[in-house]
C-alpha cells in the first residue's frame, strides 16, 4: 500500500472548491452581468455560462449534465442563448465576472500557487464518466493567475458534481428526488422547488418516493434513516471522487487544503463582513 492509500482529502478542500466556484452564479451582479453580451434574464445567464464549455449545447445535454433542473426551465433559456451570444463570448464574460469578484479577496500572488496546486489535481483526474468536468478541462488555461485559478477550481468543482450525479443515478434518485431530499435535510433553500422549476405535482411525487424509501415521515420530515443516507451520500461522493484520482492528485489536494480554505474564507468575508 502506498502512503496515500491512507490519505483522505479533507472535506474543507471540496467545500472551499465549491465556494470559490458557485459565487459566480449567486452574486447579485450575475443577474445583469450577461445582458452586456446579449443574454436575457438571470436564468439564461446561469444556464448558458455554466454549459458554455460544452459548446452550443442542446437543452437536453444541459438537462443531462446539470441534473436537478426541471426540463422546461432549461428549455426556456437554451438553445435561445446561443442565438444571442457565442459560447466563447459567454465563457469570457463568466471569467470576467468571476475574477472581478474574486480579485477583491485573493491577489494574483496568492492565486498563483493555488492555481499550480489545482493544476496538479486536475492533471490526475480520470475524466471517464465526468462530462461537465471534462468540458471545463478542455478549455485552454489563461496566462493570468487569477483566471487560471478560478478555471481550474471550476474543473474540480464540476468533477465532484459529476461524481455526485453518478452516485445519485446509481441510487435511483432523479432530479426532483434529490432536491426534495436536500430541502428536507436543510441543505438548501426552502424555495428550492421553484428555483429548480418543479411543479407541485412533481414535488409531491418526489416526496412520496422518499416516503416509500423510509426517508421522510408522514409530515414530510426527514427520518433518522433519511438523515443517515443523506450524510453518507456526501462521504460516498468524496470516496468516488478519490477513487478516480491519482495518488499525486490526492496529495496535491491534501497539501493545498489550508491555503484554498483561506481563499474561500477571504471570499466569504466579502459577502458577510465580520
Amino acid at each position: 500500500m502506498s502512503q496515500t492509500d491512507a490519505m483522505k482529502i479533507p472535506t474543507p478542500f471540496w467545500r472551499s472548491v465549491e465556494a470559490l466556484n458557485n459565487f459566480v452564479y449567486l452574486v447579485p451582479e450575475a443577474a445583469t452581468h450577461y445582458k452586456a453580451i446579449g443574454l436575457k434574464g438571470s436564468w439564461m445567464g446561469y444556464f448558458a455560462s455554466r454549459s458554455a464549455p460544452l459548446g452550443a449545447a442542446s437543452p437536453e445535454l444541459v438537462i443531462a449534465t446539470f441534473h436537478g433542473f426541471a426540463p422546461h426551465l432549461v428549455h426556456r433559456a437554451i438553445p435561445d442563448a446561443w442565438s444571442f451570444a457565442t459560447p466563447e463570448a459567454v465563457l469570457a464574460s463568466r471569467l470576467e465576472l468571476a475574477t472581478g469578484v474574486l480579485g477583491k479577496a485573493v491577489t494574483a500572488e496568492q492565486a498563483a500557487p493555488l492555481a499550480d496546486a489545482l493544476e496538479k489535481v486536475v492533471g490526475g483526474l480520470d475524466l471517464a464518466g465526468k462530462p461537465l468536468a471534462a468540458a471545463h478541462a478542455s478549455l485552454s488555461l489563461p496566462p493570468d493567475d487569477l483566471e487560471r485559478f478560478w478555471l481550474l477550481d471550476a474543473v474540480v468543482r464540476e468533477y465532484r458534481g459529476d461524481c455526485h450525479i453518478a452516485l445519485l443515478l446509481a441510487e435511483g434518485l432523479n432530479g426532483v428526488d434529490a432536491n426534495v431530499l436536500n430541502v428536507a435535510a436543510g441543505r438548501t433553500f426552502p424555495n428550492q422547488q421553484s428555483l429548480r422549476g418543479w411543479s407541485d405535482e412533481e414535488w409531491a411525487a418526489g416526496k412520496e418516493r422518499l416516503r416509500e424509501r423510509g426517508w421522510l415521515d408522514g409530515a414530510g420530515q426527514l427520518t433518522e434513516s433519511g438523515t443517515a443516507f443523506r450524510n453518507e451520500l456526501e462521504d460516498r461522493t468524496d470516496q468516488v471522487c478519490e477513487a478516480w484520482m491519482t495518488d499525486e492528485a490526492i496529495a496535491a489536494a491534501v497539501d493545498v487544503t489550508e491555503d484554498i480554505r483561506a481563499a474561500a474564507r477571504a471570499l466569504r468575508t466579502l459577502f458577510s463582513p465580520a
Partner: protein
Amino acid sequence: MPTTKFWRSVEVLHDVVYFAPDAKARYEALGLKGYWMGYFASRSAPMGTPPPEMVIATFHGFAPRMVQRALPDAWSLASRDDILTARLDLARDTLAPATEAEGADTARVARELAAIVSGFNLAGKPLAAAHAALERPTDDTGLLWWAASAIREYRGDCHIAVLTAAGLDGVSANTLAVAAGLTAVEQRNMRGWTEDEWAAGYAQLASRGWVDADGTITESGRSARQQIEDATDRVCAAGMDREATGRAITVEEGLRTLARAVLKSGVVSFPNPTATQHP
C-alpha cells in the same frame, strides 16, 4: 422493468453502424481518416463538435490517447452535419434487408421506440440526451435507428454511472469484460490501452478478488459483473415512466423479430467489442 432481451435487441439495431462492412469507407468519403476517426466523430457528433475530453468522459472505456488521435482533428476534416447524415444513411442501408424480413413491422416498432425515448428522464444521461436532441427522421427505418440509438446510449449512460459510482475505471471495466468472456482478448487494442495499463487493470480486479493470479475470473468476480448489469437495469428503470416501461414490454416481440433479422444478415456477431450478448 424492461427485460434483458429488450436492451440487447436495441443494441443490435444500433450497432449496425459500427459493424457495417462499409462503415470506414462512408466516413472516409467525407474526408475522415480511418475507421476509428469515423467511429469517434460519428458517435459524438450528436453533442456538437466536442473536444476529446468530452468524448473520453461520455464514451468511457477508451484510452484517452486513442480518442485524441481522432479528435478534434475530425471536426476540421468534415462537417458535423455531414457526419450525422452519413451515419443515418449507413444505418438505413444496413438495416434495410432486416426491415423487409418476414413478420417485421418496422413502422410500429419505430413508433413505439420513439415514444419510449420521449418518456426518458435524461438527467445524468449525456449521450442519450444528445441523441434524443437530434431531429427525428420521418421515414420508418430512419426513425427506428434514431430511437434505438437514443435507447442504447441511455442504457450506456446508466451503465457508466454505475461504473463510476463503483469506482471501476475504463481499463478495469474492459479487463473485467474480457475476464468474464463477454468480449475477446483483442479488446486491449480495440480500446487503445498499453500492456502496462492493461496489467494495472487486472491488478485492480485482483485486489478486489475478482480475478485470480493468472487472470481467470473468480466466483465473486462473476457475481460482481452480474451485479453491475443488474444495477444498470435498475438505474435504467428508475429513469423511465410507467408508460415508457409498458411500451418496452409490449414492443419486445416486434423488436426481437427485427433484431433476429439483423443477426441473420450477419452484420453483427458475437462476441464483439461492445461486450453485449446475443439477444
